[in-house]
């Protein structure tokens, strides 16, 4: 993923025109030909997803049209957990290797994880309103997903506070604990709820088939494409942020050196005089 001197290829990009075209600096755009193709594919898949989810698949026998929410809900839930998993792995690798890319990946995937967790919670509670008659119930899976959302908010809040390598270490430790925490919370909540109510009601109808299964898989593929597309852009943005900081630091150091050098030269001249 090279970012340097991509200015020529982004000539048509309005964002690139605003920025000064300095070949020494990294491009202001996070796009590349590959991500443009990926973006077009995601867009196409989302259109297909909408067509399948809203028109081409039949309503469910029991849930009627509410079942359509599942085509968004389940893929986004899976992707949300994938994002968290990616954050934990990237945090661990960053703590171990200290390669800045892992840090950028951890932050990018946590942000996407939060986006998809929010979609999961919203679609889930809308579905619950239609099917169970309530927006919220203290089901094990709902509760642990809500806690996961809060943990991601905390992680991102920590990242916002301090954008330095030291801040990245703190964030990486929280990121590393993300999946273990989710597992502990999930176990305990499941255990807690199983004492009160027998059945979990979030199971997808196993007799799902035909057009509905296709709609679900189209949703899964479209969601994954959108996730990958946004992840790459967000990763490159984080990478550019790191570059800018390093560049600013280098410039500041060089300015101080020049100042000190100039002061040293004048004092030497004065001493000679």
């Amino acid at each position, binding site marked *: 993923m090279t970012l340097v001197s991509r200015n020529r290829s982004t000539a048509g990009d309005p964002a690139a025109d605003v920025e000064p075209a300095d070949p020494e600096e990294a491009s202001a755009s996070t796009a590349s030909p590959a991500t443009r193709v990926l973006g077009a594919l995601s867009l196409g898949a989302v259109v297909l997803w909408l067509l399948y989810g809203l028109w081409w698949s039949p309503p469910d026998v029991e849930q009627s049209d509410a079942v359509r929410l599942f085509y968004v809900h389940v893929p986004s839930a899976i992707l949300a957990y994938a994002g968290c998993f990616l954050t934990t792995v990237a945090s661990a690798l960053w703590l171990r290797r200290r390669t800045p890319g892992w840090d950028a990946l951890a932050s990018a995937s946590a942000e996407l994880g939060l986006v998809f967790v929010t979609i999961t919670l919203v679609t889930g509670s809308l579905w619950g309103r239609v099917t169970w008659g309530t927006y919220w119930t203290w089901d094990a899976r709902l509760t642990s997903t809500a806690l996961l959302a*809060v*943990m991601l908010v905390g992680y991102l*809040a920590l990242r916002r506070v301090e954008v330095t390598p030291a801040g990245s*270490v703190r964030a990486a430790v929280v990121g590393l*604990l993300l999946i273990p*925490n989710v597992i*502990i*919370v999930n176990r305990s*909540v499941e255990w*807690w709820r199983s004492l009160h109510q027998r059945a979990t009601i979030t199971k997808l109808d196993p007799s799902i088939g035909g057009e509905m299964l296709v709609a679900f898989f189209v949703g899964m593929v479209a969601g994954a494409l959108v996730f990958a597309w946004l992840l790459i852009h967000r990763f490159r943005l984080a990478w550019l942020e790191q570059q800018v900081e390093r560049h600013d630091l280098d410039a500041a150091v060089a300015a101080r050196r020049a100042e000190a050098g100039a002061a040293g030269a004048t004092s030497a001249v004065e001493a000679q005089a």
Partner: protein
Amino acid sequence: MWRDAALVAQRDLRIELRSRVATNQVAPFAVLVLVLFAFALDPDRGVLDRATPGLYWIAVLLAALLAVTRSTSLDEAGGTRDALRLSALEPAGIFLGKVVAVAGQLLALELLLALGVAVLYDAELSGFGLLATTCAAATVAVAASGVLYGALVAGLRARDTLLPLLLLPVLAPVLIAATRAFEAALGTSATDGWAWCGLIAGFAVVYLVVGSSAYGALLEDS
């Protein structure tokens, strides 16, 4: 490592003894929380009796937040953090020492709160073996995770607001498990209290291990 832990624990506890922040501010705050719960849930309607274990642990967690903030801020004044970094103390030892100090304060606080619920809520305490084991395990769990997350937000501008946001969701399993174990001990619920105790102990071990290994990186880089 153990010697370093003992040194740090001694230092923290000595500061607490001399400054009396724990006795003059944290403990009264915890009792105040109990009184506020009584205002919110009318004691005559029977809600308070049934909710006692949960309210007790919420009071402990809120007071623990204060204790952890206090324990973290001890290292921020007067360049203590740099001194700790330069001292030859092992990071794991520093972590464990701070955990011991916070745990000691929390245990005293829990005793006080137990007295509080017995007097204010008229709770009949029973099953002392289970109560004591739950308290011990939960204290270590809260202290270990608290000291780790305290170190994570140490020195940040927004640390006072960030700490609850990061720590409380993580402590949710401890709250659930400790409440269930207390209900089992008091006989208000037929759950297996010892199994819940095991869950808290597992949580405590995870955080002791992660904290001891990550504390060095946090001390070095911030």
